């Protein structure tokens, strides 16, 4: 039997909408029932098993819980109910450049962002040439990143994140980063990772790319898994659902 990389069992995630922040709102909430804060279940009993080395896509309309699922897998937030098991080190390309500081130089930010993502300084030292080459911003390493263009910024962040040591990679619509040349480069890198036998989980609206990359795909809708299986079948079910609605 293959080893499991990720097991989610009956995972629920609740968000509160319009939580009372002010004393006056809180008092109003005690007085009348309809002023109480509303609850929203972003995930409703999601169960997933992903084996080591699998490449899994997640699709679904906006607000179906895709991002919440990735956030739970990455450990940024915890489920309200249910259990999660994650076997291995997770790297996520969810929010590139969170932790960059505008006043610091590109080089300083490589180190800062690297340790935020869980690297050791020694690891960063070793991977620095690779990171710098991949980002393609050698000339601007000593420039504060506040002077970077948004493309340069994202390229640097991507270069740091993709060079992490990880067992499981989470990707959120990452193929649309930078110019055409960089997009090619990053797609190539992702293919490399896929072929190296690492576990990859990708959220995307680009169904064609998913068909090329993913062994399996999960279709989410309103916080529930509608279909889980071979990518081609799940994608056609998704498209069918969309045309039915229109």
């Amino acid at each position, binding site marked *: 039997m293959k080893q499991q990389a990720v097991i989610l069992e009956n995972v629920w995630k609740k*968000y509160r909408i319009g939580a009372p*922040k002010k004393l006056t709102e809180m008092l109003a909430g005690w007085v009348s029932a309809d002023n109480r804060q509303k609850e929203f279940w972003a995930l409703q009993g999601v169960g997933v098993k992903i084996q080591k080395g699998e490449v899994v896509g997640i699709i679904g309309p906006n607000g179906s819980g895709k991002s919440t699922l990735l*956030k739970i897998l990455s*450990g*940024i*937030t915890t489920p309200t109910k249910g259990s999660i098991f994650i076997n291995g080190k997770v790297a996520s390309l969810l929010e590139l450049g969170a932790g960059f500081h505008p006043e610091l130089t590109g080089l300083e930010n490589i180190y800062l962002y690297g340790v935020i993502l869980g690297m050791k300084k020694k690891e960063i030292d070793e991977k620095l040439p690779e990171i710098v080459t991949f980002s393609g911003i050698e000339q601007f390493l000593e420039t504060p990143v506040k002077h970077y263009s948004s493309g340069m910024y994202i390229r640097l962040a991507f270069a740091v994140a993709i060079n992490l040591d990880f067992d499981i990679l989470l990707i959120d619509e990452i193929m649309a980063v930078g110019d055409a040349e960089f997009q090619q480069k990053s797609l190539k890198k992702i293919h490399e990772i896929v072929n190296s036998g690492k576990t990859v989980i990708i959220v995307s609206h680009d169904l064609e790319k998913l068909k090329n990359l993913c062994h399996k795909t999960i279709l989410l809708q309103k916080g529930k898994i509608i279909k889980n299986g071979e990518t081609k079948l799940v994608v056609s079910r998704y498209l069918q659902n969309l045309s039915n609605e229109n």
Partner: protein
Amino acid sequence: MVKTGNYNFLEDLRGVWQHRELLYFLTQRELEVRYKQAFFGIAWAIITPLSQAVIFALIFGVFLKVSSGPTPYLLLVFSGLSFWNFFSQSITMATFALTGNYNLVTKSVFPKEILVISTVLARVPDLLFSFVVLLAMMFYYHQGLSLAALWVIPTFIIEVILTLGLGLFFAATNVFYRDVTALAPLLLMLWMYLTPIVYPLSSVPVHFRLLLSLNPMTGIISAIRSGLLMRQSPDLLLLAFSLVLTAAIFIVSYLQFKKSEKGFADII
């Protein structure tokens, strides 16, 4: 393996130790950013307490003639202010350690107390600079140092732990209620006058002295002054009381912080 449920105090401390490199880089970031575009740079660490001390010396030392005993009033107030400012500025900054790092709180995975600890650590160089100025002033006033000055070290460690405890508490509470943003500076200002900073503890009437001792900063500031300026061991009972209170505040705040940490990313 991701765990849900129980938390463990020692486990949490170990988590901080495992992230010590992150702590180092965040502290460095804080320091670099603070002084990178400031013309006077680190000199602000001296300008702030010195200008405050001069004004207090003028009002209380000259106008109102508060007795500072054998110690020159300027030394009394500058020593108090240097260590008070570390406490008060650290806590003020710690209040924003989570809300001001929105991106890191909502998009990264690491023990979030690292953000609070780094803001406090980033204040230590400021204190060191003003401490050097304090020593220079003591030299100017022909005040020697004795071995009792070593009391500053354990006392300062107690102060750091107290600062961390309150910093964690304010930072976490501010995530849920922004009232803390307004409350913290007010509280710290009132607190300063209830701590022997601009006056010596000896000038406080005896029955009020007991009340003032309930404030953990009283024992800390008094111990620093007696070690440095009076060249004698501090009132150990008073310092021990500060230590006990500090430990209690730290543990309760840290537990409260870790308990609410899960909600930070969702609520902030």
